[in-house]
């Protein structure tokens, strides 16, 4: 199994904003069909890491490999075309576009849109029933469904998700957990989950890394004895 190429491999990644260095040599690997959680407190570089992996921020040094391709200097649109979906944390739907327009933006071949929408609507029926509604008028939970639906519409091999559970009601969290688990099981989808919600991350992920001041300070399996206690200690200190 380990001979398979990783879904994502990051090696010595450094990056940040202008004069501020945020990532300080991040190294991690995500296997195919694995859910991998990146945990850490606010301001530790989790979102910066995702943006740098996606090419939205330029890496200062290091290497990012996605599905076997070295994408370290690639533009974001080329990375997505490898089969990567990115679900950003904030303001990540187009509020003034309709639900359908938000979904259509993810696809290049629109001839498949109806079939893809049907598939995603099996998880989230509102995406079909309210396709004409302005996305900004959806509730917070419905907007998160739109985000995940849009990410899955392209049938990606790797999804990067930034704090999807934040501010959501338990029922919606349960639904998202069910969808992501099943997509991984049925299609072999690899997922990188940036989270502060340890319960949500542990319910989904097989492995984890803890990011602290731009560095991975711990990695392991979520099933390991004592893993949760060690993580919570990192999140408190």
């Amino acid at each position, binding site marked *: 199994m380990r001979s398979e190429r990783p879904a994502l491999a990051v090696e010595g990644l450094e990056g940040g904003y202008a004069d501020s260095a945020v990532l300080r040599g991040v190294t991690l690997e995500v296997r195919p069909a694995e859910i991998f959680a990146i945990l850490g407190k606010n301001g530790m570089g989790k979102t910066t890491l995702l943006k740098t992996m996606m090419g939205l921020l330029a890496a200062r040094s290091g290497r990012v490999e996605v599905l076997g391709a070295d994408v370290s200097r690639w*533009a974001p*649109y080329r990375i*997505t075309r490898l089969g990567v979906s990115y679900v950003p944390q904030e303001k990540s739907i187009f509020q003034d576009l309709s639900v359908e327009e938000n979904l259509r*933006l993810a696809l290049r071949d629109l001839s498949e849109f109806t079939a893809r929408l049907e598939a995603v609507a099996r998880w989230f029926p509102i995406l079909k029933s309210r396709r004409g509604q302005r996305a900004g008028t959806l509730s917070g939970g419905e907007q998160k469904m739109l985000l995940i639906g849009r990410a899955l519409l392209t049938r990606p091999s790797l999804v990067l998700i930034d704090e999807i559970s934040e501010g959501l009601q338990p029922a919606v969290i349960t639904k998202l957990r069910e969808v992501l688990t099943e997509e991984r099981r049925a299609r072999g989808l690899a997922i990188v989950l940036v989270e502060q919600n340890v319960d949500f991350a542990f319910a989904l992920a097989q492995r984890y890394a803890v990011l602290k001041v731009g560095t991975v300070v711990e990695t392991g399996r979520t099933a390991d004895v004592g893993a949760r206690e060690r993580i919570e200690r990192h999140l408190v200190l």
Partner: protein
Amino acid sequence: MFTTQLLDVVTTAGVLYIVALGLLIVYGVLKIINLAHGAFLAVGAYAGVVTTGLGWNPWTALLVAFVIGVAGAALVEWRVLRGLYARPMDTILATWGLNIIVVQLITLYFGREIRFAESAIGRAVNIGGATYSEYRLVLLLLAVVLGVGVWLVMQRTQIGIVARAVIMNEELAQALGINTRLVRFVTFGLGAGLAALAGALLTPLVSVHPNLGVPWLINAFMLVLVAGVSLLNLALAALVLGGAQVLVSSYGNPVLGSLTIVILAVIILRFRTITI
């Protein structure tokens, strides 16, 4: 008298709308004010002068102007602007510098003398007892067609959805796999092509000289600042401010009339608290 003035107001608004449309599109998607817009307009006007001078059908000037505008803009976007988007102030300086270069090149080739172009339609029509230029009415119709056409493209096509997405949140659009570099390239080309098209359309109405584009750029710039990135607001701004320009020119004096749009735009911007 009243009918003529009413027609002057709406046709002037139409002309202003055509001139400002390309500037608004570039501003909306690229978030820059293209100060070379006036230069592209002048290039379009000279395309009109040259094509009609060659004895070609005056309508061919529109196609020639549009193609030259798009090609020139593609070169400028590729070689100059692409590296400057992260520095908005530098894009303003670069496009203004480009404006100066283009004006000087036109002066070198054509000289400073005023030129005129043949009108595609020289007839006048009778409307409500007033005899009025058919060409100006065609321009009004064209402004409506362009406005509705651009609106339909923006609202009903995938290209429009992509453009609106880039206007709303470019980073998010990139994250969804949209090639925003290509969107910028096409948009700048389209905006400059529309400026050149406007220049060719204006030639039968105005005297053509190398600095022709500057006053039109200033008025278009003011209209876009007032309108934001809304096509409807641009139409309203062109109608209200352009209408005021016509009335001040008619009842006051033409010099004051030429300043009307700028003065009103400054007043609106000074007292406006939210975008119209």
